[in-house]
C-alpha cells in the first residue's frame, strides 16, 4: 500500500492508504480526527470542509494521496494554545449550531469566507458563500449572525 505524509494541524503525520482513500477517511479513520464529518455522497453538504494549504476544500472529494506534502487544518486544529478561534466563540455566543453535525464544516467555511471577504462581510455575501454547506437545524439565521460576529473579531 502507498504511504502518504502531510501536515495535519501542524503535526507531520503519515500513514498507509489505498489509492481510493479519501482525505476525510484518512483524517477520521487513520488519524482519529473525527471532528470532520461526512453528511453526503455527492460533495454538497459541506460537513467535511477542511483547509488544505489554506484553501477550504471538501475532504470527502479529495484523495488522501493528492494531499501529499500539503498542510491540512481541521476543526480540531482551529483553537490555538487552548484558546478558541474567534469564529468558534462566535458560533457559541450566537447559537449558530444545534445538533453540531454540520458545525465543523460550517466553521471551517466561515473562517475561509472571512479570510476572502474581510471583517465587514455582508449578510448577502455570507449567504451566497454558504452555498456549499447545508444545515438542517438552524435555518441559517444564527449561522449568518455568528459569521458576522466572528468576522469582526478575527
Amino acid at each position, binding site marked *: 500500500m502507498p504511504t502518504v505524509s502531510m501536515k495535519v494541524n501542524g503535526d507531520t503525520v503519515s500513514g498507509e492508504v*489505498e489509492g481510493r482513500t479519501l482525505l476525510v477517511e484518512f483524517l477520521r479513520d487513520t488519524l482519529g480526527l473525527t471532528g470532520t464529518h461526512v453528511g453526503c455522497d455527492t*460533495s454538497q453538504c*459541506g460537513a467535511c470542509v477542511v483547509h488544505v494549504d489554506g484553501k477550504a*476544500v471538501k475532504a470527502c*472529494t*479529495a484523495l488522501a494521496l*493528492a494531499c501529499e506534502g500539503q498542510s491540512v487544518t481541521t476543526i480540531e486544529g482551529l483553537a490555538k494554545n487552548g484558546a478558541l478561534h474567534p469564529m468558534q466563540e462566535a458560533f457559541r455566543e450566537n447559537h449558530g449550531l444545534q445538533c453540531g453535525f454540520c458545525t465543523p464544516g460550517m466553521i471551517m467555511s466561515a473562517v475561509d469566507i472571512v479570510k476572502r471577504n474581510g471583517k465587514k462581510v455582508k449578510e448577502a455575501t455570507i449567504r451566497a458563500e454558504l*452555498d456549499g454547506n447545508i444545515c438542517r437545524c438552524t435555518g441559517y439565521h444564527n449561522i449568518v449572525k455568528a459569521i458576522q460576529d466572528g468576522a469582526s473579531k478575527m
Partner: protein
Amino acid sequence: MHDFNYHRPTKAADAQKLIKKHKDGALMSGGMTLVPTMKQRLAAPSDIIDLTGLGNSGVKVLKTKVTVHAGTTHAEVATDKDLKKAIPSLCALAGGIGDPHVRNCGTIGGSIANNDPAADYPAALVALDATVVTSKRKLSADKFFKGMFETALSRDEIVMAVEFPIPDKSGYAKFPNPASRYAMVGVYVADHGKGNVRVAVTGAGAGVFRQKAMEKALSADFSANAVSGIATKADDLNEDIHASAEYRAHLVGVMAKRAVAGAK
C-alpha cells in the same frame, strides 16, 4: 469506490505516457466530478493520473487574447485581477460555479474535458470563440464540444490551456438548478465587434449550442430589447423534474436578455 493506482506526474509528457500505458486509466484535474462518480461506483478506472502535479495553472492576459492554463482553478479565474479587466464575465462565470470549495479544486481543463451539459465553461468557450490547446493540437471551441459528456479529445490527449480572444463586451447569466446549482440554463453572449456576436447556451440541451437567431439580432443591435421575442425551440431541450423543455426554452430568452443587459 473501487481501488485504483494513483499517479501524480509532474511533467505533461509523463502524464501522457501514463494515460497511454493504462488503457483503463483516467485523467483527473480537480476531481470534482470524477471522485463523486467513482464513489457511486459509476466509474472504476484502474489508474488515476492526477494532473494537478503539472503546475499548469495561471492566467496570462495579453492585448487581444487571454490564456488560461488548464490547471487553473475556478477560484483563481474568478479572482484574477487582469482577467477582471479583460473579460469580467468570465470571472463572474467562474465565481458562480458550484460552491467555494468546488471552486478551490475544480479546474477549467477538467471542466471542459468532462463537458457536462450543465457546466458553465462550455458556454463561455463557445461564445468567446476560444481555442483549446491540447497536448497534440489546437481546436476551436465549436469543434471541441461534441454533445453530452463528449469532446473531440482522444483518450490520451490532455487539455493544456484555453485561449480566449478578448471581446468588446460579454455577459453571462445563469439560472441554476435549485438543487444541484448546475446551470439549468446559462447563456453567454459576446460581442466581438464588427457585427460578430456569439450567443452560447448551456444547461438547456444535450450540450452547449449557439443561438443563431439571437446572434443575428444582436449583431444588428446589441441590446436586451433585440432578443425580445426570439424564441428558442423546445424540441431538443432537456426535460427533468426541475424544468420542462418549454420552461428551459423560455429561460433561454430571459437569461439572454439579462446577459446582454449585464454585458461589460
